[in-house]
């Protein structure tokens, strides 16, 4: 297991390093002068040059890359262009909002997707099953920003049940939860379809297993068989799917944060790209990449610990 963990950790380090390299290349290739954009129309040439020097843009490209690379591995992601605040502080200020949004999205997808998948499996071949199938494909097919805009128009603008903008009063958990309902629905609704399909397929497989047949032969109630014996096994692939889905939810979060004017890492990166605030772009993308890689590493280690075949095949 130790050998497997070391190999898996090494792979994660390689992935993060590659991501850093690609990130740096992309930033370097983007047209537009960061100093001009940051300082605005009234800046003199001398002021722009001073900012370029401050940002290290006057250095050769390989020096810039080494500074970025070495800094990142020591936790120094640089400073925000204008305010001079450490990028790590700026990113960690926004990160909780995005993590809460993704957690909310996962909650919606689990709370709706698992019951729908179970129901469809139990009612296999019925009208209900077909309806769940159509609904699942429909919500998968509709982009999250479309859901976000329609949810906002219906529940905020027309009905005025829920707020349209912001993340709620700082320190007021109830208000923050109310502000989370629509954005998290927009992020999570597409995954309701994925999870419903996955749970249905797994349930159908598990319901045919011999231990379920045995349970039926013993006369256990259907409810107990479905939820205690079948679902606990059928849900395992769903958890793996959700691990992968976090990456996609991160990208959906960008739209939700813009449409609902919520703070968060997605909006931070979007604004930073527009203003060519490169230290913030690289810092924020790097932090989210590390989080994603870490979550996958943890998931793989758990699976490896539970299943010896995975360890030996790596």
């Amino acid at each position, binding site marked *: 297991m130790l050998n497997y963990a070391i190999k898996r950790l090494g792979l994660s380090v390689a992935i993060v390093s590659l991501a850093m390299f690609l990130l740096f290349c992309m930033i370097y290739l*983007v*047209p*537009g*002068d*960061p100093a*001009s*954009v940051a*300082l*605005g*129309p*009234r*800046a*003199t040439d*001398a*002021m*722009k040059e*001073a900012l370029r020097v401050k940002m290290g843009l006057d250095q050769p490209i390989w020096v810039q890359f080494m500074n970025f690379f070495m800094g990142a591995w020591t936790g120094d992601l640089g400073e925000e262009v*204008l*305010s*001079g*605040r450490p990028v790590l502080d*700026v990113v960690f*200020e*926004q990160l909780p909002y995005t993590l809460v949004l993704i957690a909310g999205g996962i909650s919606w997808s689990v709370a709706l997707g698992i019951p729908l998948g179970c129901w469809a499996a139990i009612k296999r071949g019925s009208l209900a099953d077909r309806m769940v199938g159509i609904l699942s494909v429909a919500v998968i097919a509709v982009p999250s920003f479309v859901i976000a805009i329609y949810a*906002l*128009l219906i529940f*905020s*603008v027309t*009905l*005025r*049940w*829920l*707020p*349209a*903008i*912001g*993340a709620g009063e*700082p320190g007021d958990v109830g208000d923050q939860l109310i502000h989370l309902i629509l954005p998290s629905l927009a992020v999570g609704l597409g995954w309701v379809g994925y999870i419903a399909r996955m749970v249905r397929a797994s349930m159908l497989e598990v319901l045919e297993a011999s231990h379920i047949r045995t349970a039926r032969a013993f006369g256990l109630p259907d409810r107990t068989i479905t939820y205690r014996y079948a679902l606990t096994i059928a849900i395992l692939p769903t958890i793996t799917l959700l691990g992968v889905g976090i990456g996609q939810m991160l990208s959906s979060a960008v739209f939700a944060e*813009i*449409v*609902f*004017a919520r*703070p*968060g890492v997605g*909006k*931070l990166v979007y*604004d930073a*790209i*527009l*203003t*060519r605030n490169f230290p913030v772009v690289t810092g924020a993308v790097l932090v989210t990449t590390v989080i994603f890689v870490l979550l996958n590493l943890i998931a793989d280690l758990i699976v490896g610990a539970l299943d010896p075949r995975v360890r030996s095949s790596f």
Partner: protein
Amino acid sequence: MTQLLKAGLTRRSFIASTGAFGAASMAFPHMAISQDGKILTVRSYSDLQILDPAFRLSLPEDDIIRAIYPPLIEPVSGDTWKWKTVAAASMEQLDDLTIAFTLKEGMGFTDGYGEVTSDDVKFSIERIADPANESPYAGDWAALKEVEVKDKLSGLIHLKNKFVPLWTTTLPTPASCILSRKAVEEIGGKIETTPVAQSGQYLLSEWVPKQRTILKRNPDWKHEPGGFEEIHIIPIEDPATAERGFESGDLDYTWTSVSSLPRLKENPPAGSVVLEKPSLAYVWLGMNQDNETLKDVRIRRAIQHAIDREVVVDAAYFGAASVGNGIIAPGLPGSRDSVTYDYDPDKARALLADAGAEGLSVTLDILNQSERLTAAQVIQANLADVGITCEIKQNDSGTFWSLGSKEGDYFMDLQLVLSRFSMQPDPSWATVWFTPEQVGVWNWERFDNAEYKDLHDQGLVESDPTKRDEIYKKMQSLMDESGCYVFLTHEVVGAIHKDTVVPGLKPNGESLLSDFKPA
């Protein structure tokens, strides 16, 4: 949970009570924060980045800075450009080179920095003018010689030369906001996002990055108080999102996009007032005269004649804006009623034939906004009609604003570009960007005309309104003749507010937060 179950909470009763809670919450529509009239919630298009008057970056910051560091004077809200005193008890132009000021009594800085004095005025103004401080606003005080302190509350502003825009675009802006000399020197000479020694009608009490800024009424401000106990400023870049925020009741006031104005005017949300204000902005199609394809003035003049400006503006702004005839907005000296070229496709074709440029292909760079794209598509169709193939290139803002910069590698390849600048209420603010010094900086058409530059310099010292009007009209005629410009519109500014609020707005629709009042 076990205890709850013992107390009689079953799964069925839990679901029932949760459903009842949900139904109850839906029965009472979501209420705005500002329903009690004590809190004003407004949208700004960008978040706070810097609070120093010498280094401010955007209009929303101007508004906050003016509220917490009082300027000597500021614009009066309304439909005409006038000013009123804020920190100054009186301001008087003694002669062309001298302005006398006296401060109001009893204005104090927070954090124990004492009373606001004329020495603080001297410090605040001279630090902007001092080239060593590299303030982007040094040009506002380029004519400053010195500020002389007469006594604790009065002083004289001495100028090196006459500077007419001083009363319109320097003094009524954050360039005259007063900082505490002691406080600013203690923090190293520059204020970032944490204000020190505030002294205005409002105090900045909280800034949550990307979420909100809260101003609270200054309890020690002894003069006309701010209209609300608190002002919450929410940064929302996208105007459509802000409009939805207003319609859902989360905002009391917001700017709107021009294209939304017809819809909002037709069907305003209940309890709201839709405003349409003339804008000082100017939108034009520029042509790079140094680009190989466009070097021949006949080709540029052909493009001027090929474009139906009326149709372009109507399509892009859904009829909400009218055609503009220059860079100076109506109401200011130099504003024109017409341009020297008309829509004449036959003349355009003849000019192209004369220049031997049939079958010409050009590129048109635009910012990736829907209004610009629509305008560009109409221009593309107009050009196709006279035999010019036009490729539209959309750019994000970071790329777009560097396209014509001499520091980049695209400025000579740039051909047609659709641009929009905004300005302050003095014509020199519009003409300055097209001087020869600005070639490759903001003058992307590379229009290089010595007479234009001379006229610009004359305009800065000419105080006779009639002569100024002639100067600025002549400058725009020179721009017409160069063939580098097709002037499109000054746009309009759209805003919407609740009828429980009286907004404080400059004549061009820009907000003056400290002038907002409950209705």
